[in-house]
């Protein structure tokens, strides 16, 4: 199976008609690191995640997955990417187990029902495995969705506002899961507004504003004050 140890965005720009959503964004992330994409609404965070996920081509610049370019070996690259979006990418009419087994099948997991059962145990949802997803609470659905994104053991994990709508306990469980992923050598890119939760979790932070990198900081501490300083300064 294809693997890579770093992912790099090199001068990535993305236009939607006349509007430039990303402008010459560059960064890289190594294994076992969590990178935060921070910035106000419309800063380009979700677009950057879509480009990293291979759902969108950059208008210019390139994404490198190890030695591979974004436009080559797409299928093999996708097999190593897990995405949790704003929406949960789950079928409400199917049970949690059926959802995970379906996506496990798409990722060619040999024992997809076994993998789904293990994933539900990790999410603490074994007792709700055969309930339709539509009957689960928001926090439970979020946990199923995270396991869906991770079912193929991805090297690159892309999370778009994963803390939205979660209570403290669920958010804490998600943070613990992200720390496990980091320890297991995954690369996690996290787009979030929730600076309090992200504080102390991130290894690197990229502050985006109007599609441009306003600042990149390693080992950020005190994200809220940095955010106010960087984004506020840019706004002036």
């Amino acid at each position, binding site marked *: 199976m294809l693997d890579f140890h770093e992912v790099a965005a090199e001068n990535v720009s993305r236009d939607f008609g006349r509007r430039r959503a990303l402008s010459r964004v560059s960064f890289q992330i190594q294994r076992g690191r969590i990178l935060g994409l921070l910035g106000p609404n419309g800063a380009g965070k979700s677009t950057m995640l879509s480009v990293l996920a291979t759902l969108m081509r950059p208008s210019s610049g390139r994404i490198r997955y190890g030695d591979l370019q974004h436009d080559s070996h797409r299928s093999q690259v*996708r097999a190593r990417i897990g995405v949790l*979006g704003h929406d949960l990418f789950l079928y409400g009419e199917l049970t949690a187990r059926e959802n995970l087994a379906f996506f496990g099948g798409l990722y060619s997991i040999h024992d997809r029902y076994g993998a789904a059962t293990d994933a539900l145990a990790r999410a603490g949802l074994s007792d709700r495995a055969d309930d339709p997803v539509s009957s689960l609470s928001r926090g439970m659905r979020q946990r199923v969705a995270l396991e869906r994104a991770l079912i193929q053991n991805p090297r690159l994990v892309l999370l778009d506002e994963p803390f939205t709508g979660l209570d403290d306990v669920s958010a804490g469980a998600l943070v613990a899961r992200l720390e496990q992923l980091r320890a297991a050598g995954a690369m996690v890119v996290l787009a979030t507004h929730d600076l309090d939760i992200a504080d102390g979790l991130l290894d690197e932070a990229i502050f985006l504003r109007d599609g441009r990198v306003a600042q990149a900081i390693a080992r950020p501490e005190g994200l809220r004050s940095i955010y106010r300083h960087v984004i506020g300064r840019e706004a002036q």
Partner: protein
Amino acid sequence: MSVLQTIWLIVRKDLTIETRSGEIAFTTLFFAISCILAFAFALVREGKPPEDGGAGVLWIAIMFSGNLALGRTFERERQSETLRALLLAPTSRPAIYLGKLLGLMALLTAAELLLVPLVAYFFQAPMFRHPVWLTVIVVTGTLGFASVGTLFAAMLVRARSRDMLLPVLLYPLTFPVIMAGVRGTTALLQPEVDYALLRFWVQLLISFDAVFITLALWTFEPLMTDEQR
């Protein structure tokens, strides 16, 4: 994962969801039945239907209910952005297209199993005199309509005015299929079937299917890769 396995996974998933919700099957069926009843009340006078009216009514019902089913099928994929999840999987994208197409074909075929006897009854059309030919015409016609419809419905899934755009794009493009379906069915319902004419319309339908499916398979990957928000 092989293309066939991906297609099977998607078809099975769609049919499982439909079995539980019944949403598309019931709305499509009720719409199609209402359509046939409305035409029957309007056109059948003193128990005498218009000559060759059954073929036209059947294909109008298939076309309108097919459009309804297409919209609902992809609305379901849009609600939780599951279409994005399908596109993110390391599977062949044409296989995703074929899976959605076959799922839709299964639903429309189920609807047609009820529509054909209804048209036969209300319009006194000898639909079952040549069941094999009828099956060939209905299946090839439905496939042509659904193959274009599946591509457009997937493309328009994120468009705000998709409900308006889908029929505007779909009906003109699939008009030759509907025309061939109507003329082929009409030829089949004649007291003396002109097999040369029948074969001509069936060949035309098969040609449309081959062209539409090839084009859809060819364009699905690039159209769905560079998705716009």
